């Protein structure tokens, strides 16, 4: 970046830089394919802008050093944390912040061993695999068990802390989990907390958002809803949200999978009649209303079978 730097007074074209990076394209797909998550998308846009501006600043000889991009993603299950992490890896790759742009998703079991001397090689191996990309640690608070001071998780944490500090050029770490537990985790691990530059909170989806998500999923799977089924799905979502085991988009995905089963079973039951393409595509209200969500009191516990 030396020698070829443009004169400081020449205006730099941020829009052109954005177009050239191809990031606006990715951001646009993000908007189109992911319902809601407005604060998350805003944060991603900010990070992209920061990296782009940093690039331009470098071109005119200004530098604050590469920014730290380790993040925490907090939110309930099914709020899109893993999906966003994948997109994040792609965006960071387009902006050349990471070299390869792959995502290595792990949990405590992948990092922490069962025996003395087992943990460090395991953690280091995962870290090496993630280099050039993003290391996504789901339910990161399980790494730390304050009640057990001989827990090997501590060893994994120490290695991670070191890597997050010294190898920032080589990988980005994203810690993910429920918000309250992550907050407690950070409170008792100030070292980890101080290395996380971006805390991103994933809100639960609202009724309309979940309905839109269902629409997108059905479109991808090449199904459609009958008019009655649409109403039924709306009601289903309302009831499902009230249940304790509700897991946002994941619950919707599961509900649709079960509706597909019932749809297939219904067609099978009516065997003998010629099947139209329409019938093969269309989910009816009965396919949805057969769910236990409708038959049981909303207060019952985990719904495990259809």
């Amino acid at each position, binding site marked *: 970046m030396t020698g070829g730097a443009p004169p400081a007074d020449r205006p730099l074209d941020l829009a052109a830089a954005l177009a050239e990076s191809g990031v606006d394209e990715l951001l646009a797909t993000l908007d189109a394919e992911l319902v809601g998550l407005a604060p998350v998308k805003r944060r991603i846009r900010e990070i992209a802008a920061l990296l782009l501006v940093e690039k331009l600043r470098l071109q005119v000889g200004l530098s604050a050093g590469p920014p730290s991009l380790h993040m925490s993603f907090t939110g309930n299950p099914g709020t899109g944390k893993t999906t966003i992490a994948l997109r994040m890896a792609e965006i960071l790759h387009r902006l050349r912040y990471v070299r390869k742009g792959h995502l290595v998703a792990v949990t405590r079991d992948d990092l922490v061993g069962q025996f003395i001397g087992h943990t460090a090689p395991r953690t280091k191996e995962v870290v090496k*695999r993630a280099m050039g990309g993003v290391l996504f640690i789901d339910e990161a608070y399980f790494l730390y068990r304050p009640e057990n001071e001989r827990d090997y998780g501590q060893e994994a944490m120490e290695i991670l802390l070191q890597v997050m500090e010294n190898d920032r050029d080589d990988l980005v770490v994203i810690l993910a989990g429920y918000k309250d537990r992550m907050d407690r985790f950070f409170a008792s691990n100030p070292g980890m907390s101080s290395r996380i530059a971006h805390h991103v909170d994933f809100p639960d989806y609202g009724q309309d958002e979940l309905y839109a998500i269902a629409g997108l999923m059905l479109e991808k799977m090449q199904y459609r809803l009958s008019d009655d089924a649409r109403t039924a799905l709306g009601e289903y979502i309302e009831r499902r949200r009230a249940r304790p085991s509700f897991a946002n988009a994941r619950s919707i995905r599961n509900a649709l999978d079960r509706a597909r089963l019932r749809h297939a079973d219904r067609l099978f039951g009516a065997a003998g009649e010629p099947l139209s393409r329409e019938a093969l595509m269309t989910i009816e209200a009965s396919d949805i209303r057969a769910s236990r969500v409708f038959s049981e009191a909303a207060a019952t516990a985990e719904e495990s079978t259809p």
Partner: protein
Amino acid sequence: MRLTQGTFSFLPDLSDDQISNQIEYCLENGWAVSVEYTDDPHPRNTYWEMFGNPMFDLRDAAGVMKEVSAARTTFPNHYIKVNAFDATRGVESLRLSFIVNRPDPEPGFGLVRQEVDGRAIRYTIRAYATDQPEGERYQ
């Protein structure tokens, strides 16, 4: 003496960037990369010590470079090499192997001749360094 085992020993010692580029090439080919070291560089010493297991499924050279630099820190005066292993059926062997660290100076080898029948000679190559016990060879 300069030990010329390995793929690039006739070139000036590779810089870290050059080493990293070669590792990238290996990873792009899907080869597993490993780091080995020794203080007994006899040409028939096949089994250098492994500095950890071969690294499978890496995407970026940085992970290997960490091991290279850790090996250099631990064994600054040993020979260290980077190997790339290809598990493709019909190969299942090394595809690249090059030295990334060497002692200074390199004492080299002597040739021991045993004269036997009919002017024939039995040859033995002996590293001067192995006069010393393992671990005390390149101080």
